[in-house]
């Protein structure tokens, strides 16, 4: 335990050196995990602000009317427009579009996909065992 403690350095609050090693490790682990999680949350928030800025605008438009709120709304809208110009919102739009296609698929589409898969499984005759001209 003592290898972590340097009483001469006066770096620890009084009584800290009396804690068992397991407690010290748990505190270090807690601090480390808290920091990791907090940074991860910040990164996640940044990703969402970049790629899904429309949700930010929708949210701030629901805020009550006031000078501070108006500023927040103006800043959010400006941010969203900038993200649109930079093409950042395209990823969300693409995923949304893919989901709509999946959602609206009919049994005929499923059948076509299945027959397409069967067709792909069998290469054209002119490519079998030779070089296509």
């Amino acid at each position, binding site marked *: 335990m003592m290898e972590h403690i340097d009483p001469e350095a006066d770096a620890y609050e009084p009584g800290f050196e009396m804690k068992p090693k397991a407690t010290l490790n*748990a505190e270090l682990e807690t601090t480390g*995990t*808290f920091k990791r999680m907090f940074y991860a949350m910040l990164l996640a928030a940044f990703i*969402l602000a970049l790629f899904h800025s429309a949700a930010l605008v929708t949210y701030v438009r629901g805020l009550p009317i006031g000078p501070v709120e108006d500023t927040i709304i103006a800043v959010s809208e400006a941010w969203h427009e900038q993200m649109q110009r930079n093409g950042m919102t395209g990823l969300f739009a693409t995923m*949304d579009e893919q989901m709509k296609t999946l959602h609206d698929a009919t*049994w005929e589409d499923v059948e076509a996909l299945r027959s397409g898969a069967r067709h792909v499984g069998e290469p054209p005759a002119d490519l079998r065992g030779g070089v296509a001209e």
Partner: protein
Amino acid sequence: MLFPTLDFALFFVIVFLVAWELRRDMDARKLVLVLASYFFYGYWDMRFTLLLAGSSLLNYAAGRAIGGLNDGVTRKWVLGVAVVLNLGVLAFFKYYGFFLGSLADILTGLGIERDLPFLEVILPVGISFFTFQGISYLVDVYRRHVEASRSVLDIFLYISFFPQLVAGPIVRAAHFLPQLERTPHVNRRMASLAVVLILVGLFKKMVIANYLATELVDHVFFDPTAFGGGDLLLGVYGYAVQIYCDFSAYSDIAIGVAALLGYRFPRNFDHPYRASSLQEFWRRWHISLSTWLRDYLYIPLGGSRGSTFQTYRNLFLTMFLGGIWHGAAWTFVFWGAFHGAMLGIERALTRRWEAFAGNGNGNGYGGGVLGALMGVGRMIQGSIGTLLGIVLTFHLVCFAWIFFRAPTFSGAWSYLGGLFDWSQPAQFASPFIVGLIGLSLAAQFLPSGWAIGAGRLLRRAPWPTWGLLLGFGILAIEAMAPEGTAPFIYFQF
């Protein structure tokens, strides 16, 4: 405040930061968590926080009284009065209108006209959950499983802790209070599992449950007479998946959020639709309520220690009361009674089958080829039996879900009648809806500890990986989910 909203995300980030900053001052941390929980609860209606505080004070005082007494009879009396007060509050808010309405119907049936004191009673969100937690604390103190808490803050936090306040899991005092006495601790294992559970919970609620509710279940249960048997059958399967995804999502997120604050909650669901018997289903579905009912109702009633009749009676009463706990309606009464009756029948049949199989085994098939063949035969028979059991149990549960979901008793019968009319084509059976139901049911057969396994994979990853997973995970869920956020089904209980 709903979990899958930006309001909750902002609220949680602030609570997370403040709570961990105060980790060396336990009382201040608890106070912050209590205030945050009351803010969370007051978001629905500020008046309800008074009820929550009243319930907490009642249980704190009763707990101190029970803990300080040595005379068995007096302790029992204090416990009885406190439990009756708890249940009285629950009964007033939840069953007042139901009892008065039923009484009015009976009186009208008898030709008696009376002006009954009907009141517009608003049901406070999550009242059944925090009432059961309060009772759990008192009984645990009475049984000396936990010591009566001297800290009013601990009891306030135990009753109101926001992750589980409105829809469980129902956390036991013996499980939670000792955690409040230790220095809070979070490690990579807990945090990585929390990330997995929160993402899975958001997906189950926002994508699966919301799509099934808005595009299938709400329509077919609103007017079952307008649809054919195919749609109604799909509708009940859809509801089975919807209620599982909705409720287990809340539990997943609650467990994840509590873990990020350094607290451990028990598991509430374990792939319930792969149960091969109703008894097993109740070991996998809403585990915190099932075990609560077992420990605080079934066992005090005598459990299976008395005569055969008493055992069946206790089983039936427990499930019957479990049904009423869900809500004040005849549909819930039937739902609970049906499960109670079917559990009794299943128990009786299992006993007979075991006696029969036991006699069969006594024929003395020894080792050798014949024995091996018999072993293989029994294994195949066992596998087929399990498969049949899963299918049968699932359909019994689905049958009961019709009563659970239908707005009225007559609506449930009308739904059941419609299941036999196959003259209309199934208009809701799109590949998307069928695929959603099929894949969700198939996911019931994933290994029990898959979330823990996924958390283990994430444990060693650097924080940017966690951030990318959270960010793009939520982005994908948002893109996949339908518009709007519906409240969780179990908020109404």
